């Protein structure tokens, strides 16, 4: 195998986004970087199966996801509270977006079922199309769409993001308070 410079550049160009995806999957920077390293080793060992001119990021994301999935299944047997450890490890991340608003968002994101979180990130942050995300996850396009929708809905619920009802509860609370104090 001889690594074409253009292929090497394409691989390197995908690394920042691969890391962001890996961190979102395992919630831990060190583990994520190990996962990226494993992904690169696997990819380069199988570079002949990459069709020149096809979608390099999608190819690498697929490898990374599959590696994570097989590792995750293994770990799940070892660690019962997989979601709890995920949420905890998130807190130890170095982050620029570290203020309260983002911390709430991170912990809400951590509470999503892994399938939904993954779909939302691929489409909403990595910038893949629904079709590409479906290919990466090995499922139907409709499945990705419904996962993304459910993920958004649950995040909106958890974070109490409302469009128009925002003032609703407050008004009701004030009404009740006013009512009880007038007696």
């Amino acid at each position: 195998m001889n690594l074409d410079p253009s292929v090497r550049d394409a691989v390197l160009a995908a690394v920042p986004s691969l890391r962001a995806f890996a961190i979102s999957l395992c919630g831990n920077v060190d583990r994520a970087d190990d996962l990226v390293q494993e992904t690169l080793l696997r990819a380069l060992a199988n570079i002949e199966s990459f069709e020149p001119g096809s979608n390099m990021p999608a190819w690498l994301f697929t490898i990374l996801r599959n590696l994570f999935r097989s590792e995750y299944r293994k770990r799940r047997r070892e660690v019962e509270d997989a979601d709890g450890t995920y949420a905890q490890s998130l807190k130890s991340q170095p982050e620029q977006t570290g203020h309260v608003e983002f911390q709430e968002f991170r912990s809400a994101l951590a509470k999503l079922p892994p399938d939904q979180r993954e779909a939302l990130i691929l489409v909403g942050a990595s910038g893949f199309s629904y079709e590409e995300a479906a290919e990466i996850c090995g499922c139907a396009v409709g499945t990705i769409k419904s996962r993304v929708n459910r993920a958004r809905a649950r995040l909106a619920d958890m974070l109490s993001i409302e469009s128009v009802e925002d003032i609703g509860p407050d008004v009701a609370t004030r009404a009740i308070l006013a009512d009880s104090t007038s007696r």
Partner: protein
Amino acid sequence: MDTSSSSPTSARAQGRLGRDVQAKIGNQLRAIYDDVVKEGVPDRFVDLLKRLDQKDEKGSES
């Protein structure tokens, strides 16, 4: 945890979130994602690819 199919009755669970809500979620999601992307390519991965390349030149494949 079996919360994966919760609250199917609410309108938002059916994907009818307002555009403003979707935009807010999207912005926060991209912000934390781009935080990592902005870190660029850590040296360990540049070195890794360099190492693998050199290994190839010597013809000692693993």
